[in-house]
């Protein structure tokens, strides 16, 4: 199994989620993160001073998948999270040693 972590733009979540659902992926986990990268941040103003804010709000998507669909999933994320602009994010793929569904105790492919 693979565990795929994608850092994406918040506005792209809905597109990506729909694409993954289309591939038969039924579960995923999302969290809010702050990204530092080439994109740079933005400037905030406070009473006559400008502050450089380095971080950019991003979403982290985590999804565990069987080996055979991993490539497809990576491809789908790449295609649907893409805007062509700096800051689109990254996809990281890990080997997943084991997966368990808490409710049933099922493991691995059946668990995800």
């Amino acid at each position, binding site marked *: 199994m693979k565990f795929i972590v994608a850092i994406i733009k918040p506005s792209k979540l809905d597109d990506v989620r729909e694409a993954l659902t289309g591939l038969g992926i039924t579960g995923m986990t999302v969290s809010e993160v702050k990204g530092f990268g080439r994109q740079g941040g933005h400037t*905030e*103003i*406070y*009473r*006559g*001073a400008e502050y*450089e804010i380095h971080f950019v709000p991003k979403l982290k998507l985590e999804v565990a998948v069987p080996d055979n669909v991993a490539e497809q999933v990576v491809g789908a994320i790449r295609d649907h999270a893409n805007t062509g602009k700096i800051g689109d994010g990254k996809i990281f793929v890990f080997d997943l040693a084991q997966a368990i569904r808490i409710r049933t105790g099922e493991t691995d492919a059946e668990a995800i």
Partner: protein
Amino acid sequence: MALPMLRIVCGSALLSFVLLFAGDAAAQDAARLNSGDTAWIITATALVLFMTLPGLALFYAGLVRSRNVLSVLMHCVTIACLSSVLWLVFVYSLAFGDGGAANDWIGGFGKAFLAGAGTDALSGTIPENVFFMFQMTFAIITPALIVGAYPERVNFVAVMLFSSLWLILVYAPVAHWIWGGGWLAKMGVLDFAGGLVVHLTAGVSALVMVVMLGARKGFPREIMPPHNPGMVVTGACMLWVGWYGFNGGSALAASGAAGMAITVTHISAATASLTWMVIEWAKHGKPSLIGFVTGTIAGLATITPASGFVGPVGGLALGVAAGALCYFCVWLIKQRLQIDDSLDVFAVHGVGGLLGTVLTAFFASPRLGGLGFADGMNTMKQLGAQLTGAVAVAVWTVVVCYIIIKIVSVMTPLRVTPDDETEGLDITTHGERGYNL
């Protein structure tokens, strides 16, 4: 012109007092309770209390980082309570009581615990207890304004000691000089609702405090944008509305004088806000909300001393001047001189109060739409009085503040430890966290 003039000037707390004890016909006429005036001043009292609780508290609390939000709120409520008790015990008496031989400088203890002021005692056309309460709300907000100088690092015990001593040693005498029939009142200083008594004292004290306390860790390198601008705006709006009571109530009557006071107050707030916005927009490319409402407060502080003396055009002009000068002074103090007057108390209140006090000499003139001077005064004479008052108040405040802070620093540390500062005062001083969402 003398008579209407007199009526207007009566609006200021000072002269209504003078009249009250003068025993002349006008005063005798005044010595009957007017239920409309009373209704308005009770309401104004509630409005001015609302300025501090929760107006100013929210305004300031939204400007700090989230780990210090509760400590700022705590400063404001604690100061409000301490000031209230002290006001009753003897500070009201010092400020507005009869000081006998020393009356030029300070009142006496005759009105301690509101002695002799039963429910029938009058002050002008309103019950004395209403006057007492109205003035108390000023004594609450003034030390609370200084909170903006020292947040995110100050020791809470030091805040309590400093604020209490400050009310007794700075506020009471200055209020007496100007509103209690003291030497500046006799000199004809015009300060309708507290440009000197409230804003200059607070602003100057903030500066002294910051110089002695030191900057926040990481200032000015580290980013410290306000954690909750919505909270700041909420507080600013409450301050604005409450200021109707502050300035309008200082007429001590439900009259055209009160109406004019709220008119010029409102207009000054509006033009100062827009002025700040335009400057910021031009300089930084974006009009910010925090900047906008900072302009609002600058406009309100600036019109305060003038609000019983100038007309609508004065309101417009003072607002523009306030927005521009206070903007510049925020930059000067924070960016240029790198003094960490954290929430810009001096640049907004100190400078605003001073500016309004000076401009009163000009815009009180009927030629600039003002309501005119007292008999025998003109712009130049008035300007002399205003400047004398400002210098005297500033010098007294600096000296006494310095001494108070020295005393306090002997009794307790002025600052928390660097670790506590990093972790935030909410948890380390008060054992609470601002947001558990």
